[in-house]
């Protein structure tokens, strides 16, 4: 089973990404078991410090996902989020964290398949980093 040892924290917005993950479940799309989802109301709620704290506490990867740009339930949350998170992602190499371990992406409530695919790909990418390839 893939992803057994990879611990990933996912911060998912309630309206889109979390619902998308639910959708993947309703469609019984098998996924690696290392993902631990923390529900937040909006990707704009995700303080970059939560991501850094996750790494500090030993996460192998952190994924943030919210509504597609333009679709934010609150209008602008994901616009703010992507600014903060893009900066964070670019800072990671200087902080000594492989940038592959962090990913932010947009998943709508109907994109169950996309969510499953993201979890799979991201888990694999982290495993590649862990193996040093």
């Amino acid at each position, binding site marked *: *089973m893939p992803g*057994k040892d990879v*611990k990933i*924290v996912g911060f998912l917005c*309630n*309206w*889109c990404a*979390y*619902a998308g*993950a*639910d*959708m*993947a*479940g*309703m469609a*019984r*799309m*098998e*996924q690696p*078991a290392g*993902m*631990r*989802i*923390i*529900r*937040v*109301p*909006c990707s*704009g*709620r*995700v*303080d970059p410090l*939560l991501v850094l*704290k*996750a790494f500090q*506490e*030993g*996460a192998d990867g952190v994924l943030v996902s919210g509504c597609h740009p*333009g*679709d934010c*339930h*609150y*209008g*602008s*949350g994901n616009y*703010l989020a992507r600014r*903060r998170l893009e900066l964070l992602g670019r800072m990671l190499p200087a902080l000594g964290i492989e940038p592959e371990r962090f990913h932010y992406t947009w998943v*709508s*409530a*109907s*994109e169950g398949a996309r969510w*499953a695919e993201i979890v799979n790909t991201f888990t694999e990418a982290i495993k590649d980093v862990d193996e040093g390839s």
Partner: protein
Amino acid sequence: MLGVFICQCGTNISATVDTGAVAAAAAGMRGVAHAESIQYTCSDPGQAAIGAAVREKRLDRIVIAACSPRMHEATFRRALERAGLNPYMMEMVNIREQCSWIHADTGEATMKAVDLVRKAVARIRAHVPLQGGKTAAVRRALVIGGGIAGIRAALDISAAGIPVTLVEKSPSIGGNMARLDKTFPTLDCSSCILTPLMVEIKQHDHIELMTNAEVDDVRGLVGDFQIDIRRRSTCVDEEKCTGCMICQEKCPAPAPDDFNAGLCQSKAISVAFPQAVPLVASLRKQYCRRFNGGKCRLCQKLCPAGAVDYGQEDEVVSRSFGAVVAATGYGHYDWTGSYPTFGKGLYPDVITSAQYERLLSASGPTGGLIRRPSDGAEPRQVAFVSCVGSRDESAGRPQCCSVGCMYTAKQAILTKEHIPDSQSYIFYIDMRAGGKNYEEFVRRAQTRYGAIFIRGRVGRIFPRRGKLVVMGTDTLAGDQVEIEADLVVLAAGLTAAPGAGELARKLNIACDETGFMAEEHPKLRPVEAAAAGVFLAGACQGPKDIPATVAQAGAAAAKVIGLLSRGELETSPMVSAVNPSRCAGCFKCRDVCPFGAIDKDRLADGLVTARVIESLCRGCGICNAACPPGAISLNGYTDKQLLAELVEVLR
């Protein structure tokens, strides 16, 4: 003291997650006084078990590991309330959609479930009781779309004494149903049953009708949406126009006839159709000579009522509404791009069923005589092709249009009734006739009306000797079939109405992957959209027939009435709050707040701190993430709660 309940959800969860083991693990977690696995936690006995445990073990915090909180969070909050606890002292753990359903290995899924329960146990220690407030709700509803769904919803809402504004994009209400000839399975005349309702709308005291109008901007939230409605300029004063149609008659500029699905021409200034409500003309500037450099002013000169006003401009009307019903209906799939072997729309006698509907209709361009477009001849052999742009993966259209089988059967019957010596051939994939009396209706088309049903897809349509050859496979006989037809009618699939996506964005609601507006829950909240106070009626939520549309419109109306009849709404307590003793007064929160919900507060000692205007706060938590000293936090999603979760899942 904590109680943990692990739902088996029948076998939905317990098939993959060892719920007993999860309960046993939970029982060992610090502070957990009670842990049990329940077959259906959401059921009455399940909720009763929670209540009993609360009483017996004096529990004050409850963790429920079950399905997605999007499904039953509200259910369990009510259960807590009944058990005498604050409803927010509950945390749900999603071990179904995000665990049992996506993992195969029991050991792994169980381990993950235990992890998730531990996370919730840690989180719930940081929960505090929350109390929602109340806010007045505006007693007025907006219905967007004037088809049968919007009409029904508007009438039903206004019947409860709640004023309604009905907004229709086109010049007349009536929508797709007004274009239909007869309706299955009863073969009622569509106009005969619809027109009285349209008139009722126009005459209703509590209904404000705005045609040629669209939603421009939406602000606010449930109970108090502030919505700007743009009324497009039609160059005709609706108050003055009598619908005499002299302008239309004399107008020299041709324009497509939208009502007749492009089968004939109309004029730049025209009344949408003879039964239109309101019965007024409107001018389409893009076709008008005057607006394209010409000097023509005929309509203005001829109008006996003096209703034509070329200087009329768009008008934006702002209104407050307590609730919104979206009833934007459906659009027709443009098949020409995806079916090159069907002639890409170049053969005039390959038409869509929507066009055929107009040929059948007495109010149509042919006055109810079936005449094929190419030469006006009466067809003898009519081939119907189902599922064009439906149930077709190769066209990227896997979904069923849900009405194609039925209306094709109807059209075959009507063809026979119009032309008794005609022969209809129906290419189908499966006949889907699930409604009341539907199967009998299809059977009648076959037996009494002699329609020949061929199970199989059509591969090619091409002209041969003045006829159209329809080549397909008869999958039952296993043969290639070739039908020579005079007219081919394609049952093109249904799409979301044009512009529905944009409207959904304005309303802050989601669309599903086929572009239709998404309901909150497919079974339990079928008319609620993702944004509170927005409801869905009819085909905007997915293709459906008239009975289903009318039923859903009624349901949406009932929801609106339920919401607005009390006059006030409970507000969510999950809003931000400022701890003034930690506020640095930097107001970054105010800079990022999308709702202007942050104000300045001057404390007794002169310090200036932020304050949340709770009635404006919608609980996004963006301020929380932007506040450097952590003074502002979102109730229910505080840093403390998220950190507790985070630390626990990584232990």
